[in-house]
C-alpha cells in the first residue's frame, strides 16, 4: 500500500528520519513505535505528503506522493491525531461532514454516512450537534475517527490517537478501535510510544530509534528475539503495575 524508498527528512540540518526503505502492506495494522524524537510521526506525515522527503521517495499504491498527487492520496487515506484535531468553529457533525460538503455530496448521503459512522464508532447521535469543546476527550477522538472515515478511505493513519485520554477511557477506546480495524479490514498505520498498546493492535511492529528502523517484526519477535540491546531496554522499560506483596 505504502512504500518508502530510501526516504530521508532533515529539519534545520539535523536528520530526523532515514534514509529508510520500508513496505507497509495492505489490510494489516502496522504500528510505529519508539522513544520521543525517533522519527515515527515524521514517517507518518511523509506517507500522505504533509512533509516531503529531502532524499528518496514515497509511494502510495505505486504512485509517487508529491505536491501534485498529495491531495488525491489524502482523500483515500484517513488521518487522526491526538485529541481529534477537531475544528472549534464547527459542530461535531460539521467536522465529520466538512470534506463531503466541500465535495458537494447530497445532504441525504451525508446524513446516512454519518449515521453509519456514529453506529460504528458508538458515538451518540444527539451529541453530533455539539461543538468540540462540549465533548469529552474520548468523544472528540471518536469524532476525529468518524471524520477520517467519512469518505471510506482505503487506509487509516493514527498519530498517538489515545495519548491524551485517561486509562479507563483509553482501554475502552482501544477495544472499540481494534473492533473497528478488524471489521473494516483497512490498512492501518498507528503511531504510539506504548508497547502494550502496540502489541494490542499490531500485526507488525516497527521500532525506530534516531530516525532509523531498529527492528521490524511481531510483538513476540521484539520480546523474544531482540535485534540489539536497545530493543531489550525498550521492551523492559515498559513496566506493568508493580504491587507490593501484602502481608498475610
Amino acid at each position: 500500500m505504502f512504500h518508502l524508498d530510501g526516504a530521508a527528512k532533515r529539519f534545520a540540518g539535523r536528520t530526523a528520519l532515514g534514509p529508510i526503505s520500508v513496505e507497509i502492506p495492505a489490510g494489516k495494522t502496522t504500528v510505529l513505535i519508539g522513544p520521543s524524537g525517533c522519527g515515527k510521526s515524521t514517517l507518518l506525515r511523509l506517507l500522505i505528503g504533509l512533509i516531503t522527503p529531502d532524499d528518496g521517495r514515497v509511494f502510495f499504491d505505486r504512485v509517487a506522493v508529491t505536491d501534485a498527487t498529495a491531495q488525491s492520496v489524502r482523500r483515500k487515506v484517513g488521518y487522526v491525531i491526538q485529541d481529534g484535531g477537531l475544528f472549534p468553529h464547527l459542530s461535531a457533525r460539521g467536522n465529520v461532514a466538512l470534506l463531503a460538503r466541500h465535495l458537494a455530496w447530497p445532504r441525504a448521503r451525508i446524513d446516512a454516512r454519518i449515521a453509519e459512522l456514529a453506529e460504528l464508532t458508538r458515538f451518540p447521535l444527539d451529541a453530533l450537534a455539539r461543538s468540540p469543546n462540549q465533548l469529552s476527550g474520548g468523544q472528540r477522538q471518536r469524532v476525529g475517527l468518524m471524520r477520517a472515515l467519512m469518505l471510506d478511505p482505503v487506509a487509516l493513519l493514527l498519530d498517538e490517537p489515545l495519548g491524551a485520554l485517561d486509562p479507563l477511557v483509553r482501554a475502552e477506546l482501544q477495544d472499540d478501535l481494534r473492533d473497528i480495524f478488524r471489521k473494516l479490514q483497512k490498512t492501518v498505520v498507528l503511531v504510539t510510544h506504548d508497547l502494550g498498546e502496540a502489541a494490542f493492535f499490531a500485526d507488525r511492529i516497527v521500532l525506530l530509534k534516531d530516525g532509523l528502523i531498529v527492528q521490524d517484526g511481531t510483538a513476540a519477535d521484539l520480546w523474544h528475539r531482540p535485534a540489539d540491546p536497545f530493543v531489550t531496554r525498550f521492551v523492559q522499560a515498559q513496566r506493568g503495575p508493580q504491587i507490593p506483596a501484602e502481608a498475610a
Partner: protein
Amino acid sequence: MRRTSIFAILLLAGCSERPTQKPTMVIGAKKFTESYLLAEMGASLSRQAGVEAVRKDLGSTPTLWLALTQGDIDAYPEYTGTITRQILKDNPSDLGAALSVYGIRMSKPFGFRNNYALGMRKDSAAARGIAKISDLRNHPDLRCRFIDEFLDRPDGWPGLRDAYGLPQKDVKGMNHTLAYAGLVEKSVDVTEVYTTDGEIAQHDLLVLDDDRHFFPAYEAVWLYRADLETRAPGAVAQMRKLEGNISEREMQEMNSRVQVNKAKESAVAGEFLMAKSLRGSAAEEETLADRLAITTFEHLRLVIPSLLAALLVSIPLGIVASRRIRLGQAVLATTGVLQTIPSLALLLFLMPLTKWLLGSGIGAPTAIAALFLYSLLPIVRNTYTGLTGIAPPLRESAHALGLTRWAILWRVELPLAAPTILAGIKTAAVINVGTATLGGFIGAGGYGRPILRGIDKGDIPMMLEGAIPAALMAVIVEGVFGLAEKWIARRRG
C-alpha cells in the same frame, strides 16, 4: 431582509451628490470669520443670479489657491498682500495679468484693508513708551506670540524682524484667539493683529504704527476662475457688487458680531447686504435635526466606503502576508508607516493625487482615501495574526483531510481567525469614525464641520453639535461589533 436593508444603507452612502439642474458654483473660504462672511455674501449674491452657490470652508492660503487653480472651487476672497507675497512671491506691476497666467481673475478691491499689524495693550505700551514698531527695538524682553503661519511667512515675522532689526527672543507660535486672550490677561505682550479684527475694538488695543511701511496693503478682493465668466456671468456680476462697498469699520463690526456676539455669519452677511440695498438670497434655514441628518449622512459617506474598501484590500493583504514571511513583514511595515503619518499631512499629500485621479482634490474622495489608508493596518495586522496564530495540529488536520488550498482558507483558516479579524475591523471602524472628523479641514463635511467651525468661533454648542454625535457613533460602532463578537463566540459554545 436584513441583507436588503444593509444594501440600501450602502447604496445611500454611495450616492455622492444630489442631482441639481441649476448651474452650480463653489465659493471657498479660509478658516477665519472674515473669510466666511465674505464667502457667505458671495454665495448669497450669486444665488440671486440663479446659480446654486455653496460655501466651502478650506484651510489656509496654499489649500485655497490649489483648490482654485484645480477647479475644486470657483472663487474665494483673498488679500492683495497675500497674493503678491505668498502666492506669486513677486510684486508685478499688473497683478491681474500675472494672475491670468493661471486662469484666475481678480476683482476690484472691496474697499477695506485687512492689514497685518502688531497689537499691544494700551496701558503696557504707554508704560514702556511704545507707539510704533521701531520703538520695540528698545524692549528685547517682550513676549511675542504669533500664529504659526505668521512666523513662517516672509511677509510675517522673519521679514518684519529684519526690516526693523527687532531683538526679541521670546517669540513663539500660538493660536490667534488664545493670543488675544493672553494679551488681555498680560501673559503676552505683543501679537499680530488684522486691522479688521473685531477684538481690537472689543479690548481697546493699541495698533502699533508701521513706521517703516513694512506690511504691504492687504486689500480684500475676489479671486475667481476665468471660466466662471462664461459659465455663470450673472454670478460674477453679482459678486463684484461688493467692490468698493465695504469699509474697514463695517468689516470690523461684522467680524465682531460673529466673533464676540456669536451671531451666525449667514445672518450677519445677509443683513449687511440688505443695509447696502444689495439683493442677495439666503440659503434655506436649517433646523438642528436637519443639520444633524446632513452631517450624519456626510459622516457615514466618509466612513462606510473607506471601511469597505479597506476590508476588500486588507484581508487579502493579510492572507498574503501570512503566507510569505518576507513579503508579510514588508506589508506590515508599510501599513505601519502609513499609520504614523499625521492625518493632516496625509490629507495634503493626497490632494494632488485624488485631483489627478478623480478630478477633485478636496471633498469626500480625498478624505475617504485617507481613511482607507488608516483603516488598513488594524485589519491587515489582525488578519495576519489570526491566520498565523492557528494551532499547527488544526492546520495539519485541514491539510490531511485533502481539502484544496482555497477550501482550507475558506472553510477552516478564515473562520478560525474570524474573531481576531473582526476585532481588527472594529478597531479600524472606531478609529475611522474619529478620524473622519478631520474631513472638516478639506470640505469633506461630516461631524468635523461643526467641530472646526465651533473651535474657530469659540462657539461651544456648535462644537458639541459635531463632537457628541461623533462620540456616539464611535460608541455605537464599538457596541455593534461587540455584539457580533459575542454572537460568534456563542456559536463556538
